[in-house]
């Protein structure tokens, strides 16, 4: 036997909007759909409904009833995010979930009851479902029955959660008005003329007579009235990414207000990811610009993380680096989910940095310094000392047992000067550079006259010089490098590695022994 739970969020456009703007929860709010004079109220908050505002009213009618009304247009971005959030709530209870329409979900709960109170499992499940939806910012109602129709009607009937057993389904439906079946208005009029106003009244009519008088539509309605709903539950495939965003009430031109709103969206996104045990490996930002146009950005994270502060810092730096160039009227943030890596604990070896913490640290460093300034160094495939490669920092797992502290090789280190510092070198023979003899030794080093701000001060009389050591690379293409290296010790201290470009004759220092 099938048991289905219906999770329904009443007035879904309003609930989605209030989820994005929780400050409006206590205000009288209406959601409008349509433009100009064609705009109609599609949902109104409790305070607005108390004032008499109903769905279908125009803006002027609503304002006449309640002048201090808060008005919001229908926001597809908020609704899409709320739908996904509701899906995730449902999927945390059952793997088989179907969406009938925005704000209405069916869950196959067969087998799930064992995880709840054994005395009243379905009621306990329903309460947990409601609480989970409330934590996601969506007030929901729950109905549990055997068919989709009965479950949905149960969800719309107080109290919540409403449990309808298989045997009592017809009895539950019978006294309810026919409008609960959502029939075609022509059929409803006909049935009302017949004096049939309840579902039970229709169910008691002979099926053949109903088909003969009302046709195929009548037959389907009669079957629904008897509690027969042949529609199977079609489980959905989870989307490849998580999205949050909203349309803004007025366009924003400054970064700080935008980040204030984006933080809320990121917090919701982070909660959704945490609920699924996931983290974000790539962040997409889509900005809707005023009056038209879009601004798309994609931020690759060094490792999956869901820390709001880090993600917000990355967004801030990205937007500061490349501003959208127009006022922002709406935004959507998408997170590509990935499994966070887990650390293996050890008793005797070095402790591994938790991967999620490492990912957060790397993301913050990326945000501070830029991607090209953080990583694991690698030697470049060339002779010159300046080039290097940077690879993503992914340390291997530490050894299970800490090795004995190794003694170093006591090798002399060289600080590489990037870029090499231009210097003026006087050689022993002091001949012109074009006719220079390779055996000429540097005897004096002087700084190049000019803008030398921030450049190491390299000058003095050469006490000892060693060289020349030739370096040639890239001889197979036109941009070849040919250098003559010297190691020089200056009388005022300092041992430098200097070189002379063979083609140009210019001298530079590219290293200091330290």
């Amino acid at each position, binding site marked *: 036997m099938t048991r289905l739970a219906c999770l329904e969020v009443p007035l879904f456009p309003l609930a989605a909007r209030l989820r994005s703007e929780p400050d409006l929860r206590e205000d009288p709010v209406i959601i409008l759909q349509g433009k100009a004079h064609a705009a109609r109220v599609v949902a109104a908050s409790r305070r607005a409904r108390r004032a008499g505002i109903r769905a279908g009213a125009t803006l002027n009618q609503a304002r006449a009833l309640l002048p201090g009304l808060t008005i919001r247009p229908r926001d597809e971005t908020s609704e899409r995010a709320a739908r996904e959030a509701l899906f995730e709530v449902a999927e945390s209870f059952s793997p088989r979930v179907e969406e009938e329409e925005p704000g209405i979900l069916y869950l196959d709960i067969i087998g799930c009851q064992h995880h709840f109170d054994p005395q009243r499992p379905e009621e306990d499940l329903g309460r947990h479902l409601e609480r989970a939806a409330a934590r996601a910012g969506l007030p929901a109602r729950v109905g549990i029955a055997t068919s989709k129709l009965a479950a949905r009607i149960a969800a719309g009937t107080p109290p919540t959660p409403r449990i309808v057993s298989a045997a009592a389904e017809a009895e539950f439906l019978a006294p309810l008005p026919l409008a609960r079946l959502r029939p075609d208005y022509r059929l409803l009029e006909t049935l009302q003329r017949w004096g049939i106003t309840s579902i039970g009244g229709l169910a008691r009519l002979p099926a053949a007579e109903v088909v003969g008088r009302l046709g195929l539509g009548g037959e389907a309605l009669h079957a629904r009235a008897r509690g027969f709903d042949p529609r199977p539950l079609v489980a959905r495939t989870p989307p490849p990414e998580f999205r949050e965003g909203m349309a803004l009430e007025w366009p924003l031109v400054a970064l700080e207000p935008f980040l204030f709103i984006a933080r809320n969206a990121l917090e919701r996104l982070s909660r959704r990811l945490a609920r699924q045990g996931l983290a974000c490996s790539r962040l997409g930002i889509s900005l809707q610009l005023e009056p038209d146009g879009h601004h798309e950005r994609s931020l690759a994270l060094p490792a999956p993380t869901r820390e709001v502060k880090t993600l917000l810092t990355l967004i801030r730096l990205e937007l500061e680096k490349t501003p959208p160039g127009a006022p922002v009227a709406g935004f959507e943030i998408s997170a590509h989910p990935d499994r966070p890596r887990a650390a293996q604990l050890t008793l005797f070896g070095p402790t591994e940095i938790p991967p999620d913490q490492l990912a957060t640290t790397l993301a913050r460093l990326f945000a501070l310094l830029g991607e090209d300034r953080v990583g694991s160094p690698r030697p470049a495939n060339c002779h010159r000392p300046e080039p290097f490669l*940077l690879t993503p920092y992914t340390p291997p797992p530490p050894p299970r047992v800490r090795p004995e502290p190794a003694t*170093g090789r006591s090798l*002399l280190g060289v600080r590489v000067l990037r870029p090499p510092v231009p210097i003026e070198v006087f050689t022993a023979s002091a001949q012109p550079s074009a006719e220079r003899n390779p055996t000429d030794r540097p005897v004096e080093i002087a700084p190049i006259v000019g803008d030398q701000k921030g450049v190491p001060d390299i000058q003095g009389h050469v006490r000892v010089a060693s060289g020349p050591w030739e370096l040639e690379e890239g001889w197979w293409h036109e941009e070849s490098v040919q250098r003559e290296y010297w190691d020089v010790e200056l009388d005022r201290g300092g041992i430098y590695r200097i070189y002379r470009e063979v083609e140009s004759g210019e001298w530079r220092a590219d290293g200091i022994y330290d």
Partner: protein
Amino acid sequence: MTVPSTATNQPARRLPEIEQLTGLRSAREMVRERTETRRLTLDEVFSTGLPDLDHLLCGGLPRGHVVELTGRGSSGRFSCVLSLLAATTQQGESIALVDLGDQLDPRLATDCGVDLDRLLWTRPRRIEEALSAAEILLAGSFPAIVLDLGIPPLPGGRGRQVWWVRLARAVRRHRSALLVSAPYPVNPGTASVRLEIHPQRARWRGDRSSPHLLSGFELRLDRSKSHLEATPASTRLAFRTVPEWQLYATTPALSPAPSLRPAEERALRLESGREFLPAGDAPRTTPSRPRPRVGSHPHWGYRRPAIPPEVADRALARNGPRR
């Protein structure tokens, strides 16, 4: 609380008794406990790979403390940093290098024994960024961090004192080890240990008739401040350029040639891909001046980069055999 009347007569003599009776601790004891040096266990330190320096630091770079290492250009400061990186990564620990001067040579680091997979290299532009990066790394539970400020002039100066105080607090809170390598003192007051390096002399091989070759240098390390256990306050260190056998392999003119083990000889032939003078065949007389081949600087040139075969083929087809 009532204090025995006898204690009021001879307070200094009866102080331990008072403390025992009242449960209070005297200011003298608290100060002693605060300043008392303590022996660090192996788990609380990171070996620097230099036994003499470890001895000066009471076992190694201590967790929860800031150690400042100062020394002007060509003092051996960076060699100490590389040695620490090598020793730490060889133990399987992750370590971060905040390299303000952007002066790390990955190839030389590999030669020094650094496991580059475990080294996180950050290259800030100014000292503010360097201190912020170090703070982020501390918050990220990195067990050991080296903040190398390079050589003068430092971009951004010494930084504000308050930044250093924050950094020292973060080090204590996260129980990480922080080595600040600077050309001159930059964080007075916050470092638990301060070491000053004084270069002694550079070692050169050769004379007027043969080429000079830098083979290393010596330095003296003085400890000017320590909150740790009192150990010798000064030591001497020596660094060399490359292992001896590599030195002779690249400069056969130098004499006397050392004897190589067969495995080393074979490895060197395979690695360098060039002719090699075996042990015993090295000329005893020095030629006028060696002309090393391409990339044969003794400190890094014995390694030849791999030219992709397709590039080499194209170059040969276009230019003919290399001269």
